[in-house]
């Protein structure tokens, strides 16, 4: 086993591309080290990306925000500008693990770990976030929902690294929210979760909407029909009921140690309603 700490993304990509055995990217390590400890993965090469220039920074650009792959969620949570623009994304990121884990974990890591229950991913998907991928054949920018392809699996090719997550600039009258259900108040993995991102027109009616569910299918679900049902409404009772029904219906959950199929279906709808209400209020809706 080798541990390396490259200073450039090119070096990191190069090392990963030529690695013979299994290689792992280390940013926050809060998933990687647990998997190593449990013997689920024994990497030949660990590439620590935290000292690569720019990866530990949050940049505000003309288009929005560029959140480096090595930015811990605690740092993200302390960034006032991101928090103001994307409160739902920041809340979701700050729900991962404990304060201790917050000091290490990253939204990029959360995305690449490809757990269907990842907290930040439904919020990122609802937000329409994009991932900047660096690889042996250059860089590309992709929608975050295309990264996980199944539990623990991603669409990234050998040698590819996500170097940043991009979030758009916010228009007027926009709001997002993320809620998850856990049995305790902290520390649990989401049993089921919902992220909602809305923009309103000048009359307070919903103009655009994206709804995503977590722990409801093998990957985070973008429920387009749920977004459509919200558009044009002011989030009246009937709309909320249809939203819940669509979300519950869209679920393809499993029975496991964290919850039952019935529970996840039902609560997915409940959380979508509640998250929509919060997002609507944040967007200035009444």
């Amino acid at each position, binding site marked *: 086993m080798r541990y390396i700490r490259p200073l450039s993304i090119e070096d990191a990509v190069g090392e990963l591309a030529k690695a013979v055995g299994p290689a792992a990217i280390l940013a926050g390590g809060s998933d990687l080290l647990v998997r190593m400890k449990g013997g689920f993965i024994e990497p030949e090469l660990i590439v620590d990306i935290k000292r690569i220039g720019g990866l530990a920074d949050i940049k505000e650009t003309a288009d929005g925000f560029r959140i480096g792959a090595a930015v811990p969620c605690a740092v993200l949570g302390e960034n006032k500008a991101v928090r103001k623009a994307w409160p739902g994304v920041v809340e979701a990121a700050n729900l991962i693990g404990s304060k201790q884990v917050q000091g290490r974990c990253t939204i990029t890591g959360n995305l690449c770990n490809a757990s269907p229950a990842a907290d930040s991913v439904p919020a990122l998907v609802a937000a329409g976030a994009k991932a900047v991928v660096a690889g042996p054949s250059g860089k590309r920018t992709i929608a975050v929902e295309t990264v996980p392809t199944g539990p623990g699996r991603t669409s990234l090719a050998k040698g590819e690294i996500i170097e940043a997550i991009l979030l758009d600039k916010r228009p007027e009258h926009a709001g997002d929210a993320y809620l998850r259900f856990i*049995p305790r108040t902290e520390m649990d993995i989401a049993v089921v979760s919902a992220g909602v991102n809305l923009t309103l027109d000048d009359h307070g009616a919903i103009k655009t909407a994206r709804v995503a569910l977590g722990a409801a299918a093998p990957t985070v679900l973008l429920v387009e029909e749920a977004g459509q049902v919200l558009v044009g409404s002011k989030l009246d009772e009937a709309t909320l009921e249809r939203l819940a029904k669509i979300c519950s219906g869209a679920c393809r959950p499993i029975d496991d140690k964290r*919850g039952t199929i019935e529970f996840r279906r039902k609560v997915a709808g409940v959380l979508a309603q509640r998250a929509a209400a919060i997002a609507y209020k944040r967007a200035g809706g009444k």
Partner: protein
Amino acid sequence: MNFDPRFSGRQFASVGTRPIRPDGIDKVTGRARYGADFNMAGQLVGRVLRSPHAHAVIKSIDTSKAEKLAGVKAVITAKDLPDLTDGDAAMYDILDNCMARKKALYDGHAVAAVAAIDARIARQALKLIEVEYEVLPHVTDVDEAAHHHAPLINDQVFTEGLEEKPAKPSNVTKRTQFGHGDVHKGFAEADFVVERSFKTEQTHQGYIEPHACVASVNADGTADLWVCTQGHFVYRQHCAQLLGLEASKLRVTSSEIGGGFGGKTHVWAEPVALALSRKAGRPVKLVMTRDEVFRASGPTSATSIDVKIGAKKDGTITAAEATLRYSSGPYAGSWAEIGAMTAFACYKLENVKTVGYEVLVNRPKTAAYRAPSAPMAAFAVESAVDELAKELGMDAVDFRIKNAAQEGTRASYGPVYGPIGIGPTLEAVKHHPHMKAPLKANQGRGMACGFWFNFGGQTCTDLNIGMDGSVSLAVGTVDVGGSRASLSLVAAEELGIDYSHVKAIVADTSSLGYNDMTDGSRGTFSSSMATISAARNAIKILRERAAQTWDIPVEDVHWEKGHAIAKGEKYGNLSPLSLKEIAAASGKTGGPIAGHSELVADGAGVSFATHICDVEVDPETGSTRVIRYTVVQDAGKAVHPTYVEGQYQGGAAQGIGWALNEEYIYGKDGRLQNAGFLDYRIPVCSDLPMIDTQILEIPNPNHPYGVRGVGETSIVPPLAAIANAVSNAVGVRMTHIPMSPPRILAALDAEREG
């Protein structure tokens, strides 16, 4: 022994105060040494290979590849722990649990172990051990296991305690029965009868410190064992017996212990570590991972309990009956028996009958967990009592007060009670402001009572007085939650000196006589009794030395407030001699001054508590939050009230976790699905409110200060108190613990669908 343990109502100077514990500084600076914090020169790392199957015959184990791996110094299997138990069935079970002999009986059962120069090599070595299993059908559910079609875990088991010996083996090892009167007659007299079935899932003690030890066996048969345990003397006995060592040559030192709650009353890894050390000829450190702790240590029983209680219109209970089935893991236990004894112990009953069945399952061997077996029985009984009160139209507290046991009541488990605290705790609850606080929508309040025995047992202390008058107190009961502070207070009280001059330590097995373990709420009860006795023995010597100094008869020397006083007018001009002065002169008056005590601290009281709890339930998600919690419990006499409160609060918190979220979840393959703190959900700080406490002091007549054990009772009422609160909040009777959100939501949906 002419020690008089009877209660004498005295005024206290030290007892009842709240000083800082003697081991405190070490614990806030990181210096305190726990099981895994000790190292020896040349020490190896031990690791255990565990069965991935719930039930399988071990056909063969090939360790040759592991042995050849560079850095591996010993590999052991059951062959290296030959059966020396000589027909002692309980010890054989312990041996088999430490290292499976013929069959792996649960997911996580140890089958082999290695000692290597580091953890990486040890882990690699485990992968090189080849075990050939023949997988057998398994059963993990207590009701399924009790069924006659269930896979047999041990075909030599024929249910004990039946009128006729059964013709066929089964997984039910024992039937036990308690009670008196005639329940048929009693139910015939009842105007209202409630009959319900309940289930509770298996929980783990969940101590934060995994099991850890360092074992060192020498070629001459002497050995040392450093270990986190609730009872190092018991560990010595067990390890010595299982390894064929002479007990006195095995010195066991109890490290600081990072929580036990009954889970460290049992050897698991220690005989394995000793066997590895013996084979390797080097010290071996063996530390369980958290996964191993969950899969292969600890847990309590899963239960299935039927309760039937009848009462007259005026609220008098006429009959009470319960059938209790408790899982004991793959080895025989007596857990249902304890459940059957404690179930109705709070009540005055003319007609009562409880029957317990011990059931084998393919789960880890059940260990004690804080008032073992009582919380589940209390959950079933106190839920039914609440329901019956409702049917009668009576207030839940008043109904209990009307039927509460009191001095002279025949306990449901047999004997007649002396002075007890159930009535006073109920009265305190009735008048507690918590009971009158307003509730909001979706909130509910519940209360429940709990009972637990206290134990005494073999105890031994040494009290040595230094030349400067300071006192060192060596005790043999492990300090799990502040007992060194309490025992120092007792020594100071008895000697009449300041607490700051006493230093208590836990002595190792070679420095002190045998002590039973810290279990059964006996630590402070029994060691305080022995400490009082030791102090009185020392005072006798102090008086003799003063008498010698003054050259007067010892009968004329009294001991008061830390001083020898010559009593009588003729000694008017003799100024009192302080303990310090007598100690300073001791070299010239006969040498060191010490008091020793070896006694059986029998006569422990029984203990009662009543808890109140408010919850809020989210009807859309089934999520429950405990928003207010109050514990009222009888302590007999609170020696260090802060640590007594701590015991009350800790037990309540564990009960809350059990009631709401904690459970062992097995897959269809018989493997444990949630062997970690992520998915075995013990309460976190943000889950709980402050836990209010009220200490009652109804003196135990069999202790000089009136002390009762306080450690365990506080976990007995919470399951029921929370179940009653949730049931009151949602309007549906909850009968399955834990009341996890999916269970609550399913119960609500079932109710809505009618």
